[in-house]
């Protein structure tokens, strides 16, 4: 390992601009002649749009236009799409209701746009929006997933009778039933996975402009995947052909999944920039973010787990109702199916699993992938079941897990996934040691003497990351391949630009990706630039989500740099009059092995570009590109253990200790990995204790600002005790598994298992607010 190579704790190259206020986010961008968009949004959860009267607004000074959903239809702008086709158990395709970017006829959730005002300033646009009169005819509302599936419930889409998107199954039902018939013990639970608002701190924003002479659009947008945005805007929304549309995602202030999707506002900004002939900026305020950013989770589940007389799991049955909100967002259909039910085996040898997932429309904000996406719901279910089973079977929860761990790899689960490697005992042992699991009973007794209820909770999570092998996801209904691309350009002076289709919105790619180059070519990371987030600069890429940027994106860079090395070695061998096979790369020099003959990288690069003396037939230049398509998912796994105290008088929870032992395969920059885990853990703790995106019976959101929705704050959460156990991923040459989502996937079960241990009751829903915990303690 070099001082800045793989495994080094290098401080981030990108930090200087962020700590000095020089970050460049979309809302910081100003274009000449720029106008501002303000959307007029439905105050009703379900209504007919009868009439939109903009006449008074259009008379106000500074108002450029008021555009409506009907004009989008007239201009043949396409509806929003869902890019993953799911088939129901009866063989029918999923039932999609049409989702226009602005509703011409019917609104189906509070906040759905019906029109947009374009004006010379933000304030003028806002004022004019007040003057637009929209006549609505209210329709019956259904906001709750349980209510939506009842006979006679209000219907959202004519395309989806019974509000049902799909009824999807996985696993062998008959074999699972047979396992239950023979079970010595069965554990049953009803579980709710609470709806969350992703809330990256930077609200979404778009700046769109149209060049009439070139018939060319430019869109600056808060995107995790600008190329995918361009593809969708071009191929499905008819904005412009791809070569006439440039999408730039500059510094992006967090995503967590919510900035994967191509939302109505970005699309309308582009369309309006052509219609008005002026650049258009739209920036979400926080309440708009709560209303329109895709939410996460929102499952209602019944699960049963069968055990034999030796406390070995013999089967798992799961039935989940997944709330999709009012429309199917871009990847929503895959989240409660292929990203959820395929992980229901957890870390355990479970011979038979059967899961049924019913996707349901309600009059709420659309739901899609949020950090972890399906895998937190699966992990929460399995780990709540394991803890509850241990209590019911009267065995130690760690021992029950060890009794059922998968220990042989590769391991084919009954739900598609083939785990490639892991050591689940190692991470559980590391976490138990870190928290002094053996000493817990004494600590609990001491706490009891102080009037506190102390609990300990385990969560042994597994996830499928490195998304994803294209052929596999294609066979499961994905509309795209999930490879990644890269280009490595060595400049004539030996500095390097790396172009990547991954996108950094906090993950530190500018540092981590440069560390690989430093490791391979021996040059300082200061001589490497990472170029990303601009469709004019990078040819194509699938973006960043699903803990894929290191496992997939960095492997693409490795493939490209290997090609660079091959050509550079040929040039060096020619210059040094040696055999290519004898050239080795050490500390930035190409050396003839076993001699002191060497040529430095800049001289090789210069030779490539002067082309005065290259091997016969070699093209000048030193630049290579690669596409990398993974052969399998990766399987990060680990154990989280939470120890906490509950005050029985108030129901308030206080953390005592929180330990994490993760297996992410090879770490490129441990400092950045730890930061990813910290952030994920707090999102998981936020789900467990604080966060819940709620609606009343009329579909009115009651948590639409930070005054109502409890974001985790510094004094709500503890510091963490992290460690790593390592099995290298055999699926990619660097052995990387990915670390971006683990914390959010594993943490919530550990917290709830600890609270339920403390209070001695198994049934406790998230978020476990003091009120809810107090009521649970004191319930009969």
């Amino acid at each position, binding site marked *: 390992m070099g001082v800045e190579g793989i495994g080094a704790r290098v401080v981030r190259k990108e930090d200087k601009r962020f700590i000095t206020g020089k970050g460049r986010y979309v809302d910081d961008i100003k274009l000449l002649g720029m106008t501002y968009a303000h959307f007029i949004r439905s105050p009703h959860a379900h209504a007919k749009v009868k009439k939109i009267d903009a006449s008074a607004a259009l008379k106000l000074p500074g108002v450029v236009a008021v555009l409506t959903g009907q004009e989008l239809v007239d201009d043949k702008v396409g509806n929003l799409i869902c890019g993953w086709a799911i088939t129901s158990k009866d063989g029918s395709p999923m039932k999609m209701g049409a989702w226009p970017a602005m509703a011409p006829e019917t609104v189906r959730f509070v906040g759905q746009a019906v029109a947009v005002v374009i004006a010379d300033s933000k304030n003028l646009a806002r004022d004019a929006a007040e003057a637009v009169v929209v006549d609505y005819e209210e329709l019956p509302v259904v906001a709750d997933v349980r209510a939506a599936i009842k006979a006679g419930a209000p219907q959202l889409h004519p395309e989806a009778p019974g509000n049902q998107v799909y009824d999807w199954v996985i696993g062998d039902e008959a074999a699972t039933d047979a396992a239950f018939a023979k079970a010595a013990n069965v554990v049953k639970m009803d579980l709710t996975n609470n709806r969350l608002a992703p809330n990256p701190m930077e609200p979404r924003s778009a700046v769109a402009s149209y060049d009439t002479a070139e018939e060319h659009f430019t869109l600056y947008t808060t995107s995790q995947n600008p190329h995918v945005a361009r593809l969708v805007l071009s191929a499905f929304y008819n904005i412009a052909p791809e070569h006439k549309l440039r999408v730039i995602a500059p510094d992006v202030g*967090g995503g967590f999944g919510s900035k994967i999707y191509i939302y109505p506002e970005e699309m309308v900004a582009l369309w309006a920039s052509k219609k008005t002939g002026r650049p258009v900026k739209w920036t979400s305020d926080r309440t708009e973010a709560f209303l329109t950013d895709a939410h996460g989770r929102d499952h209602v589940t019944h699960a049963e787990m069968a055990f034999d007389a030796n406390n070995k799991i013999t089967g798992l049955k799961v039935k989940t109702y997944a709330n999709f909100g009012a429309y199917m967002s871009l990847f929503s259909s895959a989240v409660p199916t292929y990203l959820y039910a395929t992980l229901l085996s957890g870390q355990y040898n479970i011979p038979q699993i059967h899961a049924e997932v019913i996707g349901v429309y309600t009059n709420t904000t659309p739901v899609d992938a949020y950090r972890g996406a399906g895998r937190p719901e699966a992990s929460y279910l399995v780990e709540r079941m394991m803890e509850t089973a241990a209590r019911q079977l009267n065995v130690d929860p760690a021992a029950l897990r060890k009794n059922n761990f998968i220990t042989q790899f590769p391991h084919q689960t009954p739900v598609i996934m083939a785990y490639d490697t892991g050591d689940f005992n190692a991470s559980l042992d590391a976490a138990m040691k870190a928290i002094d699991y053996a000493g817990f009973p004494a600590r609990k007794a001491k706490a009891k003497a102080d009037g506190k209820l102390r609990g300990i909770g385990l969560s042994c999570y597994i996830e499928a990351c490195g998304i994803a092998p294209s052929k596999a996801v294609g066979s499961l209904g994905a509309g795209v391949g999930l490879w990644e691309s890269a280009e490595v350009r060595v400049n004539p002076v030996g500095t390097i630009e790396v172009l990547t289709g991954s996108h950094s919105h906090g993950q530190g790619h500018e540092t981590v990706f440069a560390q690989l180059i430093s490791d391979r070519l021996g040059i300082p990371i200061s001589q490497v630039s990472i170029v990303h987030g601009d469709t004019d600069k990078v040819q194509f890429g699938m973006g960043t989500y699903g803990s894929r940027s290191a496992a997939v994106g960095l492997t693409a860079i490795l493939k490209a740099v290997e090609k660079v090395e091959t050509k550079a070695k040929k040039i060096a061998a020619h210059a040094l009059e040696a055999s290519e096979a004898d050239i080795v790369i050490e500390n930035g020099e190409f050396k003839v092995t076993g001699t002191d003959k060497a040529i430095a990288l800049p001289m090789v690069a210069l030779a490539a570009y002067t082309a005065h003396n290259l091997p016969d037939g070699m093209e000048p230049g030193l630049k290579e590109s690669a596409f990398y398509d993974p052969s399998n998912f990766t399987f990060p796994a680990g154990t989280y253990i939470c120890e906490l105290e509950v005050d029985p008088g108030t129901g308030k929870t206080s953390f005592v200790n929180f330990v994490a032992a993760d297996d992410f395969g090879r770490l490129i920059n441990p400092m950045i990995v730890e930061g990813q885990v910290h952030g994920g853990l707090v999102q998981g703790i936020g789900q467990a204790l604080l966060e819940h995106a709620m609606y009343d019976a009329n579909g009115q959101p009651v948590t639409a600002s930070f005054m109502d929705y409890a974001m985790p704050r510094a004094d709500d959460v503890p510091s963490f005790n992290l460690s790593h156990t390592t099995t290298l991923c055999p699926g990619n040459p660097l052995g990387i598994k990915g670390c971006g989502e683990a914390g959010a996937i594993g943490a919530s079960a550990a917290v709830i298992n600890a609270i339920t241990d403390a209070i001695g009751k198994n049934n406790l829903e998230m978020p476990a607010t003091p009120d809810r915990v107090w009521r649970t303690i004191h319930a009969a």
Partner: protein
Amino acid sequence: MSTVKLTVNGRAVSVDVEDRTLLVHLLRDHLNLTGTHVGCDTSQCGACVVHMDGRAVKSCTMLAGQADGANVTTIEGIAKGDELHPMQAAFRDNHGLQCGYCTPGMIMSAIDIVQRHGGELDESTVRQELEGNICRCTGYHNIVKAVLDAAGRMKVSQAAE
């Protein structure tokens, strides 16, 4: 419209703004100081924190007119040329930031916290004092470390002056 005269990062400025203009918009839209961010519109998240007359304030919760005659320092004004403020350096060295969006407000609040508490800072105090600054990326672990680290650095640099 009103004319607001104030000093921003040591420079006297005079800006004509609509009466309803917030201080954060005067900074961002009129002075192009885009390091100060808007994250919530309700005084909760602290992405907009600047210093006014030596005190941390949420610039999304003040009218620009309320800053008339004041001395305002933003994230762009705390380094001395190329020399970072100890709090900026501590955030970088402790990986106290990821996406960077909350960072300017965090740093401005943190400087204020250290100044108010002097050397008497511990983890629990820092966590309580950061209650008005929300970060979605870091889980606060490394932010707390950075503030405690910077508290030590600021004490040393004060002692040296």
